[in-house]
């Protein structure tokens, strides 16, 4: 059971519309490693988890991902409000607009609609947690901070 709370997890306030940016950010909404995929991945995998720690963790993370999905949706919505025809044409937003207008549609930036084929749910603890790492673990950018294993001096 889910209960909706009428506030975002983090404020989304867009001053200037930017359809070009929206057409890229939309991937975080409905792309292969986007928030929709993340919530479905966690919320589906939890059913076969054998330990309460993992049932809880996947439930709680999956729920938080739904909050992230809402933030990205708000962001795309605000980036594409009150567009002029000229803005739509010149910003490369026309290919999205022709199908969805300014609707926030779960799609990858490439135009491929959200597909559950980009996630796995194997009913196996190790396979599923490894899948989560691949999809939602530390990103390449974050790995700049990687440090090698250090031995404890006790």
């Amino acid at each position: 059971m889910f209960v909706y709370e009428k506030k975002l997890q983090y404020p989304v306030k867009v001053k200037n519309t930017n359809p070009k940016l929206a057409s890229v950010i939309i991937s975080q909404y409905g792309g292969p490693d986007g928030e929709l995929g993340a919530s479905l991945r966690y919320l589906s995998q939890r059913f076969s988890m054998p330990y309460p720690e993992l049932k809880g963790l996947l439930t709680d993370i999956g729920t938080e991902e739904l909050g992230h999905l809402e933030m990205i949706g708000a962001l795309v919505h605000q980036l594409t409000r009150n567009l002029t025809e000229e803005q739509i044409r010149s910003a490369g937003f026309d290919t999205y607009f022709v199908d969805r207008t300014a609707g926030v549609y779960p799609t990858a930036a490439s135009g491929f609609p959200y597909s559950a084929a980009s996630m796995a749910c194997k009913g196996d603890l190790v396979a599923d947690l490894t899948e989560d790492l691949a999809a939602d673990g530390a990103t390449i950018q974050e790995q700049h901070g990687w440090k090698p294993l250090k031995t404890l001096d006790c």
Partner: protein
Amino acid sequence: MEKPIQTQTCACAPGMGALPNGCASLAFPYIPMQENNPIRFSRTEALQTGTLFPGLDLPFKAAIQAQTQLPNTALVELMALDFAIKELNLYLDTHAGDQEVLQLYWSYLNLAKEGREKYEKMYGPLTSTTPTPENGYAWLKDPWPWDVGGND
């Protein structure tokens, strides 16, 4: 004679966690276990940074933090408190025995209950099941969270 099992007397540095034979950076695929009662950011700092735990604050996130300045509003205050609660919730899922953090979690939950009631009195209901006898069915009132002005 067998060597007695050594009890661990030293801790990993901030940003590191324990593996069976040493410490390793947190949040990477070998998954070191975050140690009990880890150091924490303030709530506002946590919301701006995207994590409550300095140990999980990787450079990518730090770069974003440098550009972010959140306004000091009732909404942001509630968001910061709720974010800290969410972070502690996830931490406790894997560290249920950490009594110190559990106490902190409960104290934040009490703060959030009060904060939520105050916020709703001023700005309207946060859930469809909050009674609003003085304002009719206030649930529908604009702005919604994704609207322009919905985060002021």
